[in-house]
């Protein structure tokens, strides 16, 4: 079993894509990247394999910041294991979340 690292980058359509594992060791870098992203609207989580409460904190802080500045952020292509965690945390009530197709 591979041990994927975490990656965050800006895609061609302006979306931010996260891939790999957003654990407690990666959340500072992720939050910094998101804070420095202008006009953040969409985060693509298609390749995100893992998130824990430290990562949820990053998402929540980002949503609070974006909502205070206007529109909130949308999470797209959320896979079932990640969606379960969002649901347990009640994030489906405060974020626009679209599940991965299939």
């Amino acid at each position, binding site marked *: *079993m591979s*041990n994927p690292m975490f990656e965050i980058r800006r895609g061609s359509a302006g979306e931010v894509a996260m891939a790999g*594992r957003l*654990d*407690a*060791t990666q959340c500072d870098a992720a939050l910094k990247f998101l804070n420095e992203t202008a006009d953040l609207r969409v985060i693509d989580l298609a390749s995100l*394999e*893992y998130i*824990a*409460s*430290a990562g*949820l*904190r990053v998402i*929540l*802080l980002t*949503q*609070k910041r974006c*909502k205070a500045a206007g529109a*909130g952020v949308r999470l797209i292509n959320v896979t079932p*294991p990640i969606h*379960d*965690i969002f649901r*347990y*945390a*009640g994030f489906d*009530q*405060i974020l626009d979340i679209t599940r991965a197709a299939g």
Partner: protein
Amino acid sequence: MTERHTAVPSDAAHLPALTEFLRNFWSETGLPTVEAVPFELALEEVFMNVVMHGSQGGRVPRVEVSVALVEGGVTLIVEDDGPPFDPLSLLAPNVTASLEERPIGGLGVFLVRQMMDSVRYQRRDARNQLQMTKQLAVGPSTSK
């Protein structure tokens, strides 16, 4: 019974080693990858809790982790020799509050309790012990 054990100082720098330990157990035992996430999350949350709250007077507790296949599921035991602390005594965060009122922290232990079938704390031999068990939807695929 298949069982593995490891120990690390309670320092966040050791989180990747614990994750790798769990993933190795997963591949050794042929468990389906998709079932690993709740256990990886439980291990991270409980370990990070000890990292954040377990050090007193500069002493860094030692964290011992055991993972074992049990009938139809997996049991994860995390022990530390830090000061007495029952994470199950923490109040559940409000997960229905509006965005503005939503607290930033406190989700870790709550998520563990949601995702595991059982979570039990005991203070034993001057150690905190948290035992977590969850049944798996799909069993090991090693029966060839």
